[in-house]
């Protein structure tokens, strides 16, 4: 059997295998005349799944070499026992070896590019306000908000209740003369948690910050799955907010810019322009990982590789397992971003307000050649897609 999958279909194939892996442990591959079939069944034989990819799905499809019978086989999907990551300087490759059960070894040779160390400069201890709660509590708190909501305001209300409210930039001077104008306005949702839900709450009534909810959800889902507590350190509006998780084996920091000069109780003031004061950063940022938020490193690697295959040889930063930030000299991070995969971002335009997490697992950086540190003013993004 020989098949060649190209373009967007590689991702499709990967997602199909991923969805099969949710059902069973073994993947049954059978090349048929009318296509390649991938099947699985769960251990109790109460669920069966099958994908059939027609020959047209493939750039080349050969079910069997001429003269041979059609063969079929099964392979194990979820069997990683050990993962070795090493840098091969001579061939400029990052080598990820997955040692699986039954003698299966998968080796991924990923090309990379030299880069400077990605270091954001920030210090949670310099933030006057903080709160800490189990990730589960915060996960429940963001549940009522629509998944597409870009920004949320977090604040301390009367009675030391912690309030989360959806944030929308209102256009100045909207009119209510027609239905689409007024009723298509966004709905405002506000969630109130009591002080007792938090393990630590060190902030006065009336303080609040507004930050990107989508970015926060990234850390939140990891923290929920790892059952960790999540701390939020914050300062005045406009100063970055630092979200941290920690246990004995790992720690993570997400630093997010916050909107400045906004009073979350009166959002209809004039122009919605916001400025983020942004201090120094010494390297370039990396874009967010793609949608696949799963901790199965195997499919994670497949997804990385398929994107590489699409775009030719891409640069990747070295993956380090501990993201320790350098001791800060001045508070606050900033970012530069240029993503060759998005032709709409042109070098030289002010980069978006957000910058990227330093969390391990940041990937896929199509980066420019390293430059020295330079201050960049990051304007508030209009709203990311």
């Amino acid at each position, binding site marked *: 059997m020989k098949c060649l999958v190209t373009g967007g279909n590689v991702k499709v194939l990967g997602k199909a295998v991923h969805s099969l892996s949710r059902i069973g442990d073994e993947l049954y591959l059978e090349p048929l005349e009318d296509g390649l079939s991938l099947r699985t069944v769960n251990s109790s034989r109460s669920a069966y799944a099958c994908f059939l990819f027609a020959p047209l799905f493939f750039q080349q499809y050969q079910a069997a070499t001429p003269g041979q019978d059609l063969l079929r086989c099964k392979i194990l999907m979820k069997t990683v026992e050990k993962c070795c990551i090493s840098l091969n300087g001579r061939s400029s490759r990052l080598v990820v070896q997955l040692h699986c059960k039954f003698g299966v070894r998968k080796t991924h040779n990923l090309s990379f590019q030299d880069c400077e160390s990605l270091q954001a400069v920030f210090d949670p201890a310099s933030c006057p306000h903080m709160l800490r709660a189990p990730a589960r509590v915060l996960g429940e708190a963001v549940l009522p908000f629509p998944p597409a909501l870009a920004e949320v305001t977090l604040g301390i209300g009367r009675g030391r209740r912690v309030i989360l409210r959806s944030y929308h930039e209102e256009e100045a001077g909207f009119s209510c003369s027609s239905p689409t104008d007024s009723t298509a306005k966004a709905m405002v*949702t*506000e969630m109130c948690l009591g002080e007792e839900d938090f393990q630590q709450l060190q902030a006065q009534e009336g303080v609040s910050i507004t930050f990107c909810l989508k970015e926060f959800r990234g850390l939140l889902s990891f923290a929920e799955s790892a059952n960790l507590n999540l701390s939020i350190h914050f300062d005045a509006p406009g100063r970055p907010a630092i979200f941290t998780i920690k246990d004995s084996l790992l720690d993570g920091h997400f630093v997010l810019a916050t909107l400045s000069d906004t009073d979350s109780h009166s959002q209809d003031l004039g122009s919605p322009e916001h400025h983020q004061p942004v201090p120094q950063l010494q390297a370039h940022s990396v874009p967010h990982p793609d949608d696949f938020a799963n901790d199965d490193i195997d499919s994670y690697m497949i997804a990385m590789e398929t994107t590489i295959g699409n775009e030719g040889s891409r640069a990747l930063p070295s993956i380090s397992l501990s993201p320790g930030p350098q001791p800060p000299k001045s508070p606050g991070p900033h970012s530069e971003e240029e993503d060759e995969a998005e032709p709409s971002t042109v070098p030289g335009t002010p980069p978006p307000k957000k910058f990227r997490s330093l969390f391990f697992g940041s990937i896929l950086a199509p980066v420019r050649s390293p430059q020295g540190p330079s201050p960049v003013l990051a304007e508030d993004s209009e709203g990311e897609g």
Partner: protein
Amino acid sequence: MKFRAKITDKGCLELFIHVSGTVARLAKVCVLRVCPDSLCFGPGGSGGLREARLWCEVRQGTFQQFRMEGVAEDLNEIHLELTAEHLSRAARSAAGASSLKLQLTHKRRPCLTVAVELASSLGRARSVVHDLPVRVLPRRVWRDCLPPSLRASDVSIYLPRWRTLRSIVERMANVGDHVLVEANLSGRMTLSMETEVVSIQSYFKNLGNPPKSAVGVPQNRDLESMVQVRVDNRRLLQFLEGQQIHPTTALCNIWDNTLLQLVLVQEDVSLQYFIPAL
């Protein structure tokens, strides 16, 4: 103008969540009529039955508290236009809640505020408040929001089992866009469709007919004669798949070659879906 209502009963709350979900599936913008003893949801836009439309009434019994004051003494109603998906989303956040409160408020603009008290697992109170932007409709457009008043239907018949009906219509929708619905006063219903290559008929019998009111019923009506209407299959399927309540009564009314009306009732809630003939 005032409106405040509260649901504290678990079953009523679930029903309200399903009702708002159904409305959101079948209409983008809807008009909420607050009447002295009920809430009525209707389609936005001008009236008429040129296209399939849903009306829904939630009678006061669903609410454990209900108070309203209309625009005027003689016109004791409030008409609000809102985005159905907003209400559905707000209601969904009340799944498992201890109470849901609806209130007409003014927060820099008119809002329908949905306040949910969540019973936290550890007994700690949490609340979620949604402010839905609404447009208060002027009286001159009120008439457009009402369901149509029609003469008595030609045939009224109970619907077959919901799942059966839905799966048959679903399969027919895979084949073609039109379906012919026929029924008579002897409890028989037929769904049929036909394309160039295939024709499908489904026959139902012993469905039973609701007792008709005495008004407007022709005396010597032939019980066996079938009355029919041809409708857009996708609209029918949209209703069968989109509606979320568990009706105790489900029936349809047919006006010969004119209109199909599906009526579902569960406790204090009724849904009516009109599909005009093609």
